[in-house]
């Protein structure tokens, strides 16, 4: 079907006549999209923030790399260079045994008599930060093979690391499942609303079929109507969620300042998601309903 400006004018006029004529039905459709997308958007914001927290927790994990005693300055420098060259390594910080001993004395001096030790029992070490938490175990294994490293005592807090990674996985899985389920529910509601408008106008559709209109021509105003409901519902959901989220962020920032919160990035993604979902739901809901209806109208 070739669409000329004249056709476009007809489609748009029919679409807005439908929307105006089915006023209450349009309000119901936009309301259901609004509710569905508010839930979807809230779940998205929760997922973004949980993911942010899990990511920040993971970023705090370091690999503790103790060095063998009596290393020359050249060996120490060589070990540092080899660690820095490993993939994913972000930073390598040298901590001398004297510095660490002093810090330990300061921290534990009142609880433990360090004078009992004949000499400093600690080793020189590197604190290694890795870009992605998932890379930490593999990087630690590679570090253990480097000359001069006390491989027996390399530590990256394995159990904590595993918990952090598990938390991220759970957040993704639960968030993803919730988004999919809410998406399906919204699709069903939008589809049913469009179906009601189609049923309300079945006489007109039947007439169009008998006059020789193609299915595509019959569908376009209904599909545009569905997309209109989706976009208006998405815009309203975006406005409601943006206002609510900004108020929540203001309140949480004041009462729990240490809590990391997604700001502008989270909201940009939210608008993209809502508009995409609104258009997709409107489009899919109307096409599914119309296909079912037009199939019923085929000759028996």
């Amino acid at each position, binding site marked *: 079907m070739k669409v000329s400006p004249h*056709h476009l004018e*007809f489609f748009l006029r029919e679409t807005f006549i439908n929307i105006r004529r089915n006023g209450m039905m349009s309000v119901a459709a936009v309301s259901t999209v609004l509710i569905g997308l508010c839930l979807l958007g809230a779940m998205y914001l929760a997922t973004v923030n949980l993911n942010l927290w899990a990511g920040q927790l993971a970023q705090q994990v370091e690999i503790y790399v103790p060095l063998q005693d009596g290393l020359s300055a050249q060996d120490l420098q060589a070990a540092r260079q080899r660690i820095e060259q490993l993939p994913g390594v972000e930073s390598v910080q040298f901590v001398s045994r004297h510095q660490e001993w002093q810090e330990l004395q300061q921290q534990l001096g009142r609880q433990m008599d360090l004078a009992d030790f004949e000499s400093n029992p600690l080793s020189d070490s590197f604190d290694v930060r890795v870009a992605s938490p998932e890379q930490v175990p593999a990087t630690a294994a590679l570090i253990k093979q480097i000359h001069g490293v006390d491989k027996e005592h390399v530590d990256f807090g394995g159990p904590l690391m595993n918990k952090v990674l598990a938390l991220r996985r759970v957040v993704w899985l639960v968030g993803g499942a919730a988004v999919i389920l809410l998406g399906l529910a919204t699709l069903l509601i939008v589809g049913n609303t469009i179906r009601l408008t189609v049923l309300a106008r079945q006489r007109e559709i039947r*007439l169009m*079929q*008998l*006059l*020789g209109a*193609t299915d595509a*021509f019959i569908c376009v105003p209904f599909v545009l109507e569905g997309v209109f409901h989706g976009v208006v519902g998405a815009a309203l959901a975006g406005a409601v969620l943006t206002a609510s989220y900004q108020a929540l962020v203001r309140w949480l920032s004041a009462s729990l300042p240490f809590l990391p919160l997604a700001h502008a990035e989270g909201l940009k993604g939210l608008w993209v998601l809502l508009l995409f979902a609104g258009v997709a739901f409107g489009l899919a809901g109307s096409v599914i309903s119309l296909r079912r209806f037009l199939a019923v109208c085929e*000759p028996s």
Partner: protein
Amino acid sequence: MIEFYDVTVMFGGGPPALESVSLRVAAGEFAFVVGPTGAGKSTLLRLIYRDVLPTRGCVRVLGRDMAQMSPREVPHLRRHIGVVFQDASLLPRKTVWENVAFALQVIGASRATILREVPRALSVVGLSDKAYAYPETLSGGEQQRACIARAIVNHPSIVVADEPTGNLDPATSWDVMQVLRHVNAHGTTVVVATHDREVVDRMRKRVIVLDKGRVARDAEDSDYEGVAASSGVFLEGDLH
């Protein structure tokens, strides 16, 4: 133009709506289909515009076998067939002009075509002065004439009318038939299902009598009494 070869139509498990019907309507012909309620008149008409497919047999319209036609081709066939219903089927929120123009808009006609053809069709049915009236303000006869204007605006080869005078008084029925006769005189094939005795008698056209889904009689230049008597079919008009 319209050919039926041993056509049987069955809906569900009941008796056939049409059984072994064979007939031919030539281009430019005017034919009445008469018979009692449930005789299969509407089913026969629906076969012509492919609203129903034959269970057995073959229906050919404008040289095309209906059963062999793909769903994508059906709208293009229907653009050559104008359909008039008993209840007029005008869209209530559109004016007469808009209702007639709608038939052209839904097949993607240009604005120039609409501006040229709608006044012509309204003039043929004598409704030029009611172009901007809404259906609810029209009489039954005017509504039916508007429906005919919508059916012919696209210059169809065939016009199919199912009980077009069913709700009209005799004088108005005759007006509607005159419009259909005028359409036929310009070369359009017209098939009308009716049980309006007076109309059939006065028109003196071909009459196909259906009874229990079968063709009981098919007579050229006939009248209602003649076919009813010779076929032995008890027609609805006989009740009155």
